[in-house]
């Protein structure tokens, strides 16, 4: 059997506060993510969701257990990964195209015509084909986040890590971006780990939802989302959608069972 794309094996993360107190961000997290699977990690603030993402990205080392990518233990950042953050964090001194090609320039020191053409394709993919030479401050928040998605896709990663990418957007743009992301994902299938604290967003987007408990962050339950794809506006009125969302809501607001 081939190993899963991402495996969390009894993962634990303890931080020391400045006062020297130990804070358990993640505790006994174990689950697998399959190829081209879209997994949402859902939980309240302080459940270690972002820590989970940084562990996969190899930006921090776990204090216990391991993260494996393709069966190999993650000890440093790897090439298979693209990250989209909560804020677009684009570079104001580059135009849109310059921002999309930035990972290339930053990693290898130069950008070839091939990459520039690739970046233009990606801009077309995120519906910004005509904005390649615009300045960043000429773009709305939603458009900036699309540029950030294109930037994350530039080096063609197998794995896309998204850390509450739409939480800084207004509600209408947020819905629009969810459908955009689904369209992009169907066009360029990737293994996606999507961090969110929005229940409808998780249900609409994901194949599976990992529900986390806060302090310490543990996996409360893992739910399959049996909604058919492609998903659309109609999905939002599907009874299954509401049943699942209600279930998660109940699960999140009930007291955690004694571990």
């Amino acid at each position: 059997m081939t190993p899963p794309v991402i495996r969390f094996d009894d993962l634990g993360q303890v931080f020391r506060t400045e006062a020297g107190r130990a804070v358990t961000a993640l505790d006994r997290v174990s689950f697998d993510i399959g190829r081209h699977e879209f997994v949402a990690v859902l939980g309240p603030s302080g459940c270690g969701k972002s820590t989970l993402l940084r562990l996969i990205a190899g930006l921090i080392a776990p204090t216990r257990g391991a993260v494996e990518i393709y069966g190999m233990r993650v000890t440093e950042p790897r090439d298979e990964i693209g990250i989209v953050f909560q804020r677009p964090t684009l570079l104001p001194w580059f135009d849109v195209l310059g921002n999309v090609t930035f990972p290339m320039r930053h990693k290898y020191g130069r950008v070839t015509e091939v990459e520039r053409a690739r970046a233009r394709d990606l801009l077309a993919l995120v519906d910004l084909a005509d904005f390649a030479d615009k300045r960043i401050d000429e773009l709305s928040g939603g458009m900036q986040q699309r540029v950030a998605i294109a930037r994350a896709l530039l080096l063609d990663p197998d794995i896309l890590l998204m850390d509450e990418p739409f939480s800084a957007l207004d509600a209408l743009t947020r819905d629009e971006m969810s459908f955009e992301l689904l369209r992009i994902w169907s066009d360029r299938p990737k293994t996606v780990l999507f961090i969110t604290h929005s229940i409808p967003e998780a249900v609409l987007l994901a194949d599976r939802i990992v529900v986390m408990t806060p302090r310490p962050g543990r996996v409360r339950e893992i739910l399959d989302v049996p909604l058919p794809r492609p998903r659309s506006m109609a999905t939002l009125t599907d009874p299954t959608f509401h049943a699942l969302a209600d279930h998660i809501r109940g699960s999140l607001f009930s007291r955690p069972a004694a571990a």
Partner: protein
Amino acid sequence: MPSPITSVAVSSPVPPQPEAATETAPPDARAPLSVWLDRSAPAVAFLAVLAAWEGATRLFAIPSFLLPAPSAVVTAALATPLEVWLGHVWATLRVALMGYGLAILVSVPLAVALASSRLLSRTLYPLLVVVQSTPIVAIAPIIVVTLGASDLPRIVITFLITFFPIVVSTVTGLLSTPEELIELSRSLRAGRTREILHIRLPYALPHLFSALKISTTLAVIGAVVAEFVAAERGLGFFILFSTSFFKIPAAFAGLVLLVAISLLLFRLVGLVQKRLVPWSLPKSER
């Protein structure tokens, strides 16, 4: 300026304002007087102060060694030959620019070092604060004695008064880089050098330019302080020399030139910023 792009993204047509139809007043339709006042208010205020100054000195017959009238200052300025003025201006400007340049050359790498290493920052920062807390006017004579009578002590004095704001602002800028971009850089394994060159330093540019503007004025102050201590040329020397002979109008003329140099350098740095890094300015100033 309304940007057409944002309206595409939002794509929510704004309902026409009922007042908009009746009150279609273009900006130029205001009373001509108020438009004129709006544009020339600074110049008018400046001239008014000059006029009041001139009037007061005449009305109360203030002796020119206490407060010379603007007209007396102009007369004194014209009494000194142009090449003498240029010699003094050049002497002061040269010291100010060399001290300023030295401050930039030292401060930016120093700021990178301080921002990169916690140990360095903990070791050097207190020392820098001690240097900054030392009154430069008090230390200037010591520096002149130590380094001898040349341009060198003057440049060092200018440097000492100029470099601290540049270091502090650049460090602030380097550390204000969004954490996500540093994580992006690390996830790409681009290396520390590229992280600093491609992300941190550009992010520090708005802060750096704020400090560079402040430092132009400080550089002129530094040059004048140095000339007060030991010099035989320069506007600071000229002012000191003139006052010791009670030629107060001439001293005022030198002062006006110093202000002009400060303003010019300040403006010049502003233009460089506008030209090279327009994104670092607020939209209204581009």
